[in-house]
């Protein structure tokens, strides 16, 4: 009765998705060739995605999906791709996290080794094993490499690159998912 009076959902409704932070980036961006951890946010256009996690680490976890358009592959495609939160575990051999080094993967790209061909970037990563508290956090995606590299020449290409392109854009969803039923 109390729930009806207050119009609160039943406790059983608390599982599943708690929140989705959506992010779109339609800005064309020339990628920089960088080494070390300087490239850790380049996949998102040299920026992170700020989001607020509503629940504690014991109550929820983060899951991320997305597509990232690129143009031209100037480097051999093994450059330490990573997707991380709050710059956790970006070191090559960092064993403090649930997986060794470079943010534990979860981000990759592929395409031909040509300057005028599309390269497809994808993010698909669960952070369920990570310790992420409630509050404000920053998601980054990029690389940690031992030489100056970049996966694409252009992020989010448009008609400035080739006149058949419309403006392309990266779309990413950051899901906060309940750990409880």
């Amino acid at each position, binding site marked *: 009765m109390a729930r009806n*009076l*207050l*119009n*609160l*959902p039943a406790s059983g*409704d*608390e599982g*599943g*998705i*708690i*929140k*989705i932070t*959506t992010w*779109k980036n*339609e800005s064309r961006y020339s990628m920089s060739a960088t080494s070390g951890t300087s490239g850790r946010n380049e996949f998102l256009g040299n920026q992170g995605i700020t989001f607020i996690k*509503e629940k504690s680490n014991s109550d929820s976890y983060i899951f991320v*999906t*997305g*597509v*990232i*358009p690129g143009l031209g592959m100037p480097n051999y495609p093994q450059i330490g791709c990573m997707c991380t939160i709050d710059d956790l575990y970006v070191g090559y051999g960092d064993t403090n996290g649930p997986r060794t080094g470079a943010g534990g993967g979860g981000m990759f790209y*592929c*395409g*031909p080794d*040509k300057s*005028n*061909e*599309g*390269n*497809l970037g*994808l993010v698909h990563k669960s952070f369920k094993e990570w310790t992420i508290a409630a509050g404000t956090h920053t998601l980054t995606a990029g690389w940690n490499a031992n030489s100056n590299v970049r996966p694409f020449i252009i992020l989010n*290409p*448009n*008609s400035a690159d*080739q*006149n*058949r*392109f*419309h*403006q*392309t*854009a*990266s*779309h*990413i*969803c950051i899901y906060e998912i309940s750990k409880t039923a």
Partner: protein
Amino acid sequence: MARKIIGTKPAIERDKLINVTHFWNNSRSDVNNSANGTLWSGSFTKLKDANESWILMDGMLPGSRNYSDQCGTFAELNGADTNNDAPRYEGIYYAGVNEDPGWARFILQVHRIIKNDDSAQELAAGSRTWKVGWYPRNGGSGEKPFRVLNPNSNEDSRNQQYGSYMSIWEYRY
């Protein structure tokens, strides 16, 4: 009680999944050269209106044999803005091997977030259609992302029959 008076939704209701419709297509097809074209389409029912729910178009279409380096691929719901550089060209991309033989494979990935900030005309409740296709910005003819959709052993004897998936996720704001 205060929340009910103010009329705001409780946090637990935001971003809740309202409905999801899944589509599957394992029919191999030769993709025609065209100034614009449709790779795949379908229909579904959106349960809430544009101010109550948003859509995530989430799918993957396998292709084979290269053709156009770029061709203006789009993912849309009916009613979409079709002007140049419109939102329907965002959240979708493809890449693959820049070769003609059947072993040269492609992935066309769709992950388009459709919200009423820029695409309300696609989000009305009721029966709706979705479409994935291409429309080159320069109006050029004879384009396509790849030559074969959902390739099979016809392209390479090592292939099984591949198929495309599309999921239409409807979430509450």
